[in-house]
């Protein structure tokens, strides 16, 4: 199904990909039931391969919303402003994404600055009479204050319900100000998973910012990532390629040249699926169809595919050989030290699949993993991007594989089943519980830390570091009380409250 760029509203993940947020079983089963070439789609769900059986329970804990992902993507473009058309509460996100933005800029060696997000601060009266005047006012404020190269508008649950004509206002203001004014539809209630917010941002960028008449730059590769340290430049540099990092911390000009690149890669398909496919579809920018570059097997495949589509095969082979030889002794040493250690991965979906591969290559035992959602397919629908199947085929099954949208109450029983020595996380919310159970966490704030050949060694070292933290966590575990009822903590099945399977 092609990506539809004609309408200003992005199609949600569940509409496009059949995304689910609750599921329990083995990784092998989930790979089987997902939409790629494998046989055996869920029988009870009908013929459409992408319809996965999803479980749904009455108890849910606070999750994350699409608007937050717009804030942390569009809101972190260096020379743009994002106007949050919402009551003031959505605006508090400015705090976290400012802190991350500042530290990301510092880590990447870019000038540190505060982000540019403006709340329209809607009040009770606006809920009755509409908030368009305030939106227009704030967009003009954004323009006068910062002279931005583009202005994004993030919608909210409130404006979605009252039905403000944000698209109309954006069109009018774009003509008035002479810069792209881009509505991003990201009402939290419209998608069950926050990654739709990534798509909303990317939808707006492809529609209104990328250069419509691109001049090809045959050595430029788009890297869709977050705030991670600059590991792609040296890697791609080995092949004589330049990087174009987007969306966080990019400039509008860097976003505009997305269509000029020769290829697109990413650190995670969950993040990059939509825009990488849209750029291929609209501008022939090749989305590199290879597993994500974590662990030697996937990194080899990834480099070879990058080299193939950019015609630099020889350089790649030499680099691969050199890197294998370079990391071998250290890898061996780490495997020795990590023998008998058990790890657990609890991160975003595609990223988790890769982390399991990295841990297993390091000799760490992985009996369980939790992902926040599952996309049965990514937008390309190309089986070479089937990260879950790649994990199963390359590194083996994970017997306790759970989809749980950051539901801490389920995490307790999941950890009891597996009893890991450490967990790997990115998002907040699960590590605090693990910590109170005596289990330390590695928070991968720098998403590139475990990437590529060096990433294997990086993660191995980080595991050794965090195992020492056990002293802290075990002391804490002996002196803490969990907010869950005894009966619940005694329950071995974290999905017991769920209703019989429903179809999404």
């Amino acid at each position, binding site marked *: 199904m092609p990506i539809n760029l004609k309408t200003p509203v992005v199609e949600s993940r569940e509409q496009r990909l059949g995304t689910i947020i609750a599921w329990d079983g083995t990784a092998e089963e989930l790979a089987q039931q997902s939409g790629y070439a494998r046989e055996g789609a869920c029988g009870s769900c009908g013929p459409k391969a992408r319809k996965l059986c999803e479980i749904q329970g009455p108890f*849910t804990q*606070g999750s*994350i919303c*699409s608007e937050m992902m717009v804030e942390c993507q569009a809101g972190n473009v260096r020379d743009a402003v994002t106007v949050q058309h919402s009551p003031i509460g959505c605006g*508090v996100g400015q705090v976290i994404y400012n802190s991350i933005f500042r530290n990301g800029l510092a880590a990447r060696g870019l000038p540190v*600055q505060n982000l540019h997000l403006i709340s329209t601060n809607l009040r009770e009266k606006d809920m009755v009479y509409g908030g368009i005047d305030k939106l227009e006012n704030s967009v003009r404020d954004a323009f006068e204050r910062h002279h931005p190269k583009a202005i994004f508008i993030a919608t909210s*649950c409130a404006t979605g*319900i009252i039905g403000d004509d944000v698209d109309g206002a954006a069109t009018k203001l774009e003509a008035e100000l002479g810069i792209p004014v881009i509505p991003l539809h990201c009402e939290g209630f419209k998608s069950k998973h926050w990654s739709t917010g990534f798509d909303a941002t990317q939808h707006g960028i492809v529609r209104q910012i990328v250069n419509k008449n691109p001049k090809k730059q045959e050595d430029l590769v788009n890297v869709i990532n977050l705030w991670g340290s600059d590991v792609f430049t040296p890697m791609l540099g080995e092949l004589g390629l330049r990087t174009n990092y987007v969306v966080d911390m990019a400039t509008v000009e860097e976003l505009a040249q997305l269509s000029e690149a020769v290829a697109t890669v990413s650190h995670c398909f969950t993040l990059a699926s939509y825009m990488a496919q849209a750029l291929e579809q609209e501008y022939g920018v090749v989305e590199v169809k290879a597993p994500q570059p974590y662990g030697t097997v996937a990194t080899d495949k990834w480099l070879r595919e990058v080299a193939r589509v950019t015609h630099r095969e020889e350089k790649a082979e030499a680099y691969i050989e050199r890197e294998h030889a370079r990391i071998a002794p250290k890898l061996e040493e780490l495997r020795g030290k990590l023998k008998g250690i058990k790890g657990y991965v609890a991160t975003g979906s595609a990223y988790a699949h890769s982390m399991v591969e990295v841990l297993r290559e390091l000799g760490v035992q992985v009996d369980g993993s939790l992902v926040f959602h599952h996309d049965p397919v990514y937008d390309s629908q190309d089986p070479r991007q089937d990260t879950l199947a790649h994990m199963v085929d390359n590194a083996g099954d994970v017997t306790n594989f759970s989809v749980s949208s950051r539901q801490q109450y389920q995490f307790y029983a999941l950890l009891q089943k597996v009893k890991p020595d450490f967990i790997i996380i990115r998002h907040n919310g699960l590590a605090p519980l693990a910590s109170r159970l005596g289990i330390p966490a590695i928070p991968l704030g720098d998403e590139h830390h475990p990437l590529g050949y060096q990433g294997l060694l990086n993660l191995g070292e980080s595991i050794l570091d965090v195992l020492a933290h056990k002293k802290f966590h075990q002391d804490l575990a002996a002196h803490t009380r969990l907010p869950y*009822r005894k009966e619940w903590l005694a329950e071995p099945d974290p999905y017991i409250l769920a209703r019989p399977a429903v179809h999404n």
Partner: protein
Amino acid sequence: MTETVKEKTNSIEQIRYGCAIGALHTATAIPRVVPITHCGPGCADKQFMNLSFYNGFQGGGYGGGAVIPSTNATEREVVFGGADRLHELIEATLKVIDADLFTVVTGCIPDLVGDDVGSVVGEFQRRGVPIVYAETGGFRGNNFTGHELVVKAIVDQFVGEYEGPRETGTVNLWSLLPVHNTFWRGDLTELKRILEGIGLKVNVLFGHESKGVAEWKEIPKAQFNLVLSPWLGVSVAQHLEKKYGQTYLHIPAIPIGAKETSAFLRKVAAYAELPQEPVEAFIAEEERRYYLYLEDFSDFYAEYWWGLPAKFAVIGDSAYNLALTRFLVNQLGLIPGRQIITENPPDDVRESIREEYRRIAEDVSVEVDFEEDSWAIHNLIRETDFGHKPPVIFGTTWERDLAKELKGALVEVGFPASYELVLNRSYVGYRGALSLLEKIYTTIVSASA
């Protein structure tokens, strides 16, 4: 001073408060009380990660952070209403979460589609479940007004009626906004300590020194309510006066330093009609220790070579702003350059706040600004004449670049303080004042070379 002629905009850039549902922290700040949020999927996390995590990295505590139950409302709840979903969530919460009291707070979605939250919660209340609710949709107000709504909800729906006797010498303390104020835990501990020092029994109600809901049940028995803030909590005290016939003492300035704190304690003691001797004995002992440390500090203050700021600005909510300004002027002899109040206090209290600043000291009168939009705030600071050397700014993370631009020092004292780790640090009372001195001058000395 340059006057900004442009009409005030609705825009708020670099926010300094959350919305009414941010008052979910009013529940999490009470031991073993857990909020239940009826709202979109991001609201609970947003208010926590920003008001608590990236504000001193305070931690979620027992029932905050990712523990918070939420309906995570979807299109279905928007189109068909979410009352059934809320009912289902509460029922399930009772099976999963171990709490002494649940506090339902609502977001924009149920408040706009008109869910009858009262009748859903009412059903559980009739079953004897300890649960209350407050309608805190984001468009209704900020987390300050939300706090008062939640407090009143707990009083009316959980504490309930009381006809019995009063306990002389017991006071309910209503002061800093929990969690939003980065230092609330340490400050409430210090306030409780000094009030107990003069012989009061203190229902501190929030934080690690609170006895949880048992203490809240004691509220009606207290002799009086003490409102220690420029305005927050006054409407709570008035509500309690009406409900329980309890009187209240309102002292706008939270005391920092011996001078302020001793005067504060004498005022409270007089109101509570405490015997004078033990009060004076406590004050004398606290002052003895305080002034020994102040003497130690004075060597640095008198002899440090490389220059210390003379003028200061405070950007923050009225409670800390007023408290800091009084301390910096009266204890340290600093010169106020600009004071900006950022929490959007109700119109009817603004004049009384202005009056407080007009009499900071006998010889010092300050005209205070009210502004929430950081763009305007930073311009006000840039327009200020700080004299021949850069100021020290008491502000937030938003001022990090501004302080560099002005070559001044920044002490992050309020939301958001994303570059501070705060556990039990306090800046108020006798002990907090010394920590504050350490913080201010460590910041300045540390940046000097």
